Structure formats: structure tokens, C-alpha cells
């Protein structure tokens, strides 16, 4: 197995892929969105429960590759207990980490998520890593929409 491939499929990623955390529907979700990557057929559903500007619980379902499954699993762990502003900041940080080639900075605030940085060397796989985050964002926006229309 080549070094580059080991870099992409780090043990933490493989572990989250084999044993995804927070997988399943969330009872009494306040936000929900479906994400779909038409290029490869990956799809994900993100469930969310927020209270007073805090993400109290988040879960996901769907089918996807190791990168998208691990990204979703790690995302649910990372955003739980965070404020909406913190989630937004993590989303931006994550996106810049996986898209900016030659990005050498460290991202201590991303914690384990940093292992997904290897995906930046595989342009066609970047969307796999970001799909769960876009879906989470849509779930948050959808929730806001619901709030504003009611």
C-alpha cells in the first residue's frame, strides 16, 4: 500500500467507516436535510436537535464511501454541544482544509477531523468529505426557515 493511500485512508477514518458514530434517525429532530452527490450517487440524511443556539444532538443516515461516512461520523461528534457560530466556523475551517492545496497549517480546533485533510490530494474525492457538512448546513438553514415562517 502506497504512502499516499495510507495518508488518505488513515486508521481513524477506517475506524469511523467501520463503526460510524451517531448513525440513525434522531427522535424529535428540529432540523433535517438530505444531501446528494449526483456524480457518484452518495446520499446522506442529517438529523439535528438544537436548543437555545446549541447543537444538542446530531445524527446521520445514508450510503456513501469511506470518506463521506467517516466525515459524517466525525462531524457529528465534533459539532455536538457547540454553538451555531462555532459550527459555522468549523464548517469554514474544514472546507478550507480539504480544498486548499498545499495547506500546511494545523487545525487544532478541528480535532480528529484533521485526518481528512489528506483528501485535498484527491480532487474528485473532496466532495465526498464535504457532503455531510453541506447537508448539516442545509439542516440548520432549513430549521431557520421553519422558525422564520412560523
Amino acid at each position, binding site marked *: 500500500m502506497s504512502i499516499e493511500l495510507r495518508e488518505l485512508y488513515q486508521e481513524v477514518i*477506517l475506524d469511523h*467507516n467501520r463503526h460510524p458514530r451517531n448513525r440513525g434517525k434522531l427522535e424529535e429532530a428540529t432540523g433535517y436535510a438530505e444531501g446528494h452527490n449526483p456524480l*457518484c450517487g*452518495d446520499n446522506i440524511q442529517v438529523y439535528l436537535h438544537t436548543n437555545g443556539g446549541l447543537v444538542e444532538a446530531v445524527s446521520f443516515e445514508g*450510503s456513501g*464511501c*469511506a470518506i463521506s461516512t467517516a466525515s459524517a461520523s466525525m462531524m457529528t461528534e465534533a459539532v455536538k454541544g457547540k454553538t451555531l457560530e462555532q459550527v459555522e466556523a468549523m464548517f469554514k475551517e474544514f472546507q478550507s482544509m480539504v480544498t486548499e492545496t498545499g495547506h500546511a497549517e494545523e487545525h487544532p480546533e478541528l480535532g480528529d477531523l484533521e485526518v481528512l485533510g489528506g483528501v485535498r490530494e484527491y480532487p474528485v474525492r473532496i466532495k465526498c468529505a464535504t457532503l455531510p457538512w453541506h447537508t448539516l448546513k442545509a439542516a440548520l438553514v432549513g430549521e431557520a426557515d421553519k422558525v422564520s415562517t412560523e
Partner: protein
Amino acid sequence: MNVIGQINESFFAESGFDVNQIRAEFPILSTQVNGKPLVYLDNGASSQKPVAVIEAMDAYWRETNANVHRGVHYLSQKATREFDASREKVRAFLGAKHSHEIIFTAGCTASINLVAESWGRSNLKAGDEILISTMEHHSNIVPWQLIAQRVGATVLPIPISDAGEIDLDAYRGMLSERTKMVAIIHVSNSLGTINPVKEIIQMAHAAGAKVLVDGAQAGPHIRINVQDLNADFYTLSCHKMYAPTGIGVLYGKETLLNEMPPYQGGGDMIHTVSFEKTTYAPLPYKFEAGTPNIAGVIGLGSTIDYLAALGSRFENREVADISEALDAAFRTLEAREKELTDYGMQVLGDIDGVRLTGTAPNKVGILAFTLDCAHPHDVGTVLDNIGIAVRTGHHCCMPLMKRLGVPATTRASLAMYNTHEEIDELVVGIKKVKELFG
């Protein structure tokens, strides 16, 4: 390696088929990917091009380039001559009666859209039904949905078996006086199944319906004869059959094409133009508005020459007649591919955790599978890392994937230059995937 292989080795030795000689004629096959010799198994998406075709295109740009059908000067006439010669070669390739039944388009998708729009607009009405199969490529689904929505017709899918074969009994039951068009894929791009299109056409005709056969994946694999099939329309995707990109073919029966209104208007497709009334050019020009892909068409002609030359090579004699030469070429290529496909299905099927999709006995070299421990995208990335090119995803067949109950598959698709050793490499690659994800 296996019994089938041993039997056929002598057949190929006698036939003059030498895979190494063929491989040497495709320059890209000697390149490396990620430091490994390229193992190109994504021919279903696009095949590689022989040096003869690359050189013919290059010579066109260097020595011939000019517009066709409208110049009195030397180059225009030379370009026109070569362009028209290609049309005759395609006629022979498809076994059509007339070369003016061959329309050059931008691709197989464009060919199907042309028929859906031009034939559909003048022949479909509310309540009519268009039958397609569950294994259609999106390009033979969506154009029909678009016209159906416009006129109030319905698009109905013919069911398939788990092995990936069209359910002919169900099809028979679906045919009625409402059926106006049956649009069917000749060879499935996702499963490899060779559909019994001749029988499907007979049944459709008995019900009074026309048939369009999507031959995108048939072109590179099997000898086609549109007259024998009695197809009303037949389409080709030329870049999948060793020719350049940006070129497609539409074959249509002369009477049908004559009855159909033009698809696009512009130069080259007219007889006379006035602001009061425009009259159209005869076939095939009526459907070829604007400057065509001249280099691509000439490249396509050289591809057919290359295939015909293979026929002579396999026969160990000069076969002058192009149709006869193509018969000879495909006789050997089909036998070789069958043997390689059987080998591939066997060795892939022997891997623990591999589930093959598309197990019809009558199939071309499409080896599609899912692996229990890894998603196709991860399989594709790991294989790419060792120089193996495969396609992963839904292969533009989302309804088929749903029918098979899989989100996506990994597909290795064979061409005439692929070898047993390359399939062995694929097996090694899949075992690497299993090590990583298992």
C-alpha cells in the same frame, strides 16, 4: 490458466490475433499511471485510440483542413471527399442499405435526442406510450421523458431479471396499440447484457411501434447489421469504439427520416432559403445543420479502416470487401472477448465478498461488481493508486441501480487490447482493497 483459455489459445494462434501487436498500436497503453503501467479497464466510458486514427486526425489538420460541401477549392474538395468516404464506411459498419441513412451527430446522446424530438414531435400524442427497459442509460430515458411530458405521452420501463435480462413476457404484455416507440439499449453499459433486440423489434413491429436501438456499447463489441435487426433507428457513440470524441451516428430508415421534420436549422441543411419559404436539403444533410465535426468524422472513417484491416490480419489474407473484413474482425474479437469475459467473471466471482452484477450468459466484457467491505469509490481510488482505471458510480443508470438494490458499482469494461494479466492485476487490486477495508 483455465480450460476455456487453453482451448482458445490455439484458436487465436491460428486466427492471427496477437494481443501484443494490438497493444503496440495504441500508444497510451504503454504509459504509466502513479508509477505503474496503465491497466485501462474503463473502455465502457471511452476507449483508447489506435495510432492509425491519431495519425489520420493529425494528417487532416496538417494537410486537409477546410470546410466541407461548399468550396470549389482543392482543400475543401479533399475534405469533402474524405468526409463522404467515412459515411460510406459507417454504412458498411452498420450494414445499412444506403449511406444517406447515416447521419453524423455530436454523439449518441445527440442522436437519441434528434429522434425523440423530430420523430417524437410529429408522431407522438397524448395517451401514447414509449417503452424503454429498466437497464437504460439516462441518455435513452430523459429525451423520451422530455418529449412525453410535452405531448402527454407516457414512458414505461420494461422489467428485467436479477441476472440483468429483459423480461420478454412482461414486454409482450406491455405492448398495445398505445405503444408508439420502443427505445432499447442493445448492450447494457452497466451489466454487459446483449439484449435480444431482433426479437424485441419483431414484437414491437407486430404491435405497430417503431424501435430505436441505443448501440453505444454494441459498436465496439459486436458486429451490427441494422437491416438484419430491422431496426428503425440505431445510434452509435464513436469514442467508445476506438474513434474520436464528439462524434455520434444516427442510422434511420430512409422512409422514416424523409418523413421527419429537421431537428436543427442552419447552414448545410437547406435547399433554398427565402424569408417566405425555406426548403430543406435531402438526406442526410437535412439533419446535419452547421459545419460538422469534420476531423472527427474522418477519424471515425480511419477507425473503421483499422477494424477492417484487423479482419484481413485475422484471416491471414487480404479481404478487400469492407463488410466482409469487418465480419472477419468481429468474429475473432467477439470470440476473444467472450473468453476474456468468462475468465474475468470467474476470477472476480471467486473473490470472497465480491458480488457480480450482470450475470446474463449472453454478454460483452462488462465486469461490474460490489464488494461487501468497501464502497465503489474507495475501490476506484485504491485501484487508481496502482494504475488501474475503472469506473465507479451509477454509470448513468440510476433506475437500474435502484432495481439492483445497490447505490453504485465498480465496473471494469474490456476492449480488444485487454489481457488476462490485466484482469489478474485487477484481482490483486481488489485484494488490496480488502486488506485496507476488510
